[in-house]
């Protein structure tokens, strides 16, 4: 039987682009740790490679491979095998289930955020859970996105939306930590004549996949597919504002997790800016922007790049008069979701992100743009610069912040 990894020519292009190998030479790398190790394991060799879990899961190797192999999945396979035998370790469970604490945390955000920012508590978390004490935890908001959505009035409540409906998959960070981004997404879509639908949804499962728990990830995935498939069947586009969630829905549900019905859902899933750009190309996007005089460096999230959809956010931001947006192209931020919070990986994470932080500081800009939440948090922490979602810039340029109730 011929396997995908048999196509590996050992050309090392993946190694040349791997952001971890550059700063952590002890990492076996995508070639040896991916197709190389897979071949040995398939031959029945029991091989454990030290430091293999230093992989960020950025999928750069999948993207650059000239032979169409996905080394990132193969590198993750030993971790998956281990978790399926022994279950998720406590720390990994805590880091991948923040959505379970969300409903409580948004009731008492002051207390929760205070506790998570408390020095002695973080020190204890580091000693007990090995969650690094340096990087600030993302802050919970004082309401959830869906609460806001339920309470507000849609402009298309009483008349049909001219451009039809779209489903919005918001993800965990919008739901509990950054509901304002969800609001910007909804209002930008409504401004452009779409009615926004919000089916029930759970965490997309990417943090679970990255930590090796495919079973739980598939559980979340089945729930999401079940609630999205009817919309997909009607041809309603499903837009996603977090680039890691969109990659998971598009790629991992039908591929790695092999979920029933996921292929049909994936066909309708769009990254938010991919969708807005497609609207622009069809002449559906309003361009009644007010000028913003600003230079905006765009940090391309690895999981956005992995989708091979170009840079629609940069293109759309540059439609705003006065805006000069450009792709920073300074590599991975190093945060990689839960990775940067782990004690033994914090140093690697910061070394990976150094080039990006240096480039941002040298840009002379006052804020950065990125459509992945953990990239934005890393930018704010490591570069000391405000980081916003591109939709927030668009929302401002449409003047939507002037409306009642802001």
């Amino acid at each position: 039987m011929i396997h995908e990894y048999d196509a590996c020519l050992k050309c090392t292009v993946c190694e040349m682009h791997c952001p971890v190998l550059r700063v952590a030479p002890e990492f076996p790398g995508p070639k040896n740790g991916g197709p190389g190790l897979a071949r040995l394991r398939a031959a029945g060799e029991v091989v454990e490679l030290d430091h293999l879990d230093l992989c960020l899961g950025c999928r750069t190797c999948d993207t650059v491979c000239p032979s169409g192999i996905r080394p990132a999945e193969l590198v993750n396979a030993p971790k998956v095998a281990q978790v399926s035998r022994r279950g998720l370790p406590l720390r990994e469970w805590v880091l991948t289930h923040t959505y379970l604490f969300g409903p409580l945390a948004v009731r008492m955000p002051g207390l929760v955020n205070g506790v998570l920012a408390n020095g002695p508590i973080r020190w204890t978390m580091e000693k007990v859970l090995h969650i690094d004490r340096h990087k600030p935890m993302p802050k919970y908001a004082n309401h959830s996105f869906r609460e806001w959505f339920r309470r507000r009035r849609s402009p298309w409540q009483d008349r049909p939306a001219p451009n039809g409906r779209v489903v919005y998959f918001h993800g965990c960070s919008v739901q509990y930590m950054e509901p304002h981004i969800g609001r910007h997404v909804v209002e930008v879509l409504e401004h452009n004549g779409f009615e926004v639908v919000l089916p029930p949804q759970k965490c997309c499962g990417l943090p679970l996949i990255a930590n090796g728990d495919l079973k739980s990830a598939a559980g979340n995935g089945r729930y999401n597919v079940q609630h999205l498939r009817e919309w997909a069947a009607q041809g309603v586009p499903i837009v996603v504002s977090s680039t890691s969630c969109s990659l998971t829905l598009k790629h991992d549900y039908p591929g790695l997790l092999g979920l029933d019905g996921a292929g049909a859902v994936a066909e309708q899933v769009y990254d938010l800016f991919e969708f807005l750009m497609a609207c622009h190309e069809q002449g559906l996007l309003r361009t009644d922007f007010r000028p913003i005089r600003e230079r905006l460096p765009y940090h391309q999230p690895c999981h956005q790049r992995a989708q091979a959809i170009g840079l629609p956010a940069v293109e759309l931001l540059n439609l705003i008069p006065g805006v000069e947006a450009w792709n920073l192209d300074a590599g991975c931020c190093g945060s990689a979701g839960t990775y940067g919070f782990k004690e033994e990986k914090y140093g690697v994470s910061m070394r990976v992100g150094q080039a990006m932080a240096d480039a941002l500081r040298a840009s002379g800009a006052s804020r950065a743009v990125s459509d992945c939440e953990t990239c934005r948090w890393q930018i704010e922490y490591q570069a000391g610069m405000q980081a916003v979602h591109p939709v927030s810039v668009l929302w401002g340029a449409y003047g939507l912040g002037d409306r009642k109730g802001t």
Partner: protein
Amino acid sequence: MLVIGGGLAGMAAALAARQAGATVAVVSEGAGVLELASGCIDRLAVPEGSLPPEHPYRLIGMAAVDEELAAFQKAMEAAGYPLAADGPGAGGSHVITALGSRRRTHLVAPGMAAPPPGEPLWVVGFRGLRDFHPAVVAAGLRRSDPAADVAWGEVELPGAPEDVHPVALARQLEDEAYRRQVIERVAAVRPQGRGGAALLPAVLGLSGAAAVRRALAEGLGMRVVEVLLPPPSVPGLRLADALRRAVQQAGVDLAIGARAVEARREGGRVRHVVTRGPGGRITYEAEAYVLATGGLMGNGLTAEGRSVREPLFDLPVSAPDGEWADPRFLPAEGHPFVRVGVAVDGRLRPPGYTNLFVCGRALAGYDPYAEGSGGGVAVATGGAAGREAARLVAGGEPR
């Protein structure tokens, strides 16, 4: 217009087409394999007169080849990556390899031009960097020039690593504190009173390589020249990074990681191309298309036994007249199967197509290995194809 393939040829096509005013997108399955090449662009190591009429250089003409190479050099310089050209009568540009040979090339990567014959040379290696042995380099240099004044030395890197990855070392050397330690160690083994050039492995930094070389040259009081290693190649990575920057700065839409799987043709026109990747199926409609998907190694051509196909458009592919392979392993004139590819007209269009142009390794009629022409054919036919496509999009008269 749409360029299919993001290797050297595809990127050269995109740059040229942008220059000519077209709106350009590039889609590619992988990121090309420049990281396995020298980082320099070869032109031709055999006499021009020996090229057959179906050779890509002959099809577009040597004048166009040199125009495209010059345009590429200019575009890279504008992007902050100055490649030095092999001027007429200059005796050729050379780089030094890890075997100590002098290798002829055309556009030389910064810091790699070989010192002129007669200059005293001092070769320095790093222990643990397994593809660079200063004694081997020195012996090779003496073999090609028995009168050469060559010395060599080796230093241990901080931490005495057993195995050093060239990219990791290149990145480490961009850190000032680490670099200072390395320079001190290199300076400590330098023979007293020796001038000339210091030859070091080509691992001296990534995007900050110019600063690394400058610091070394200052610390040693010698000219610093980088020596080409076997793949993976740090100069190749620098070129790939610089090229990607140049293409993005030019305003090209770049989508790497999706394979073109389907094309629709109506009469002589390509209507659309569909890609499939982690981001789903995407349909691209363009006025003109450039096919830069590579040869047998890059999956731009696929082979089953002696049947070679171009899988996206099913274009006719040439076959050798007689034997496919020479019984010798490395015949000087190359193996016939290496010349297999898509046959095109003088405007790089395959038969029957009006808005499709083919460039780079997918083309028939040349042997990059035997001729030393790989980079040159990619850049020249890429540039020419990009310009032809842009002209078609603009509605201008074909030349």
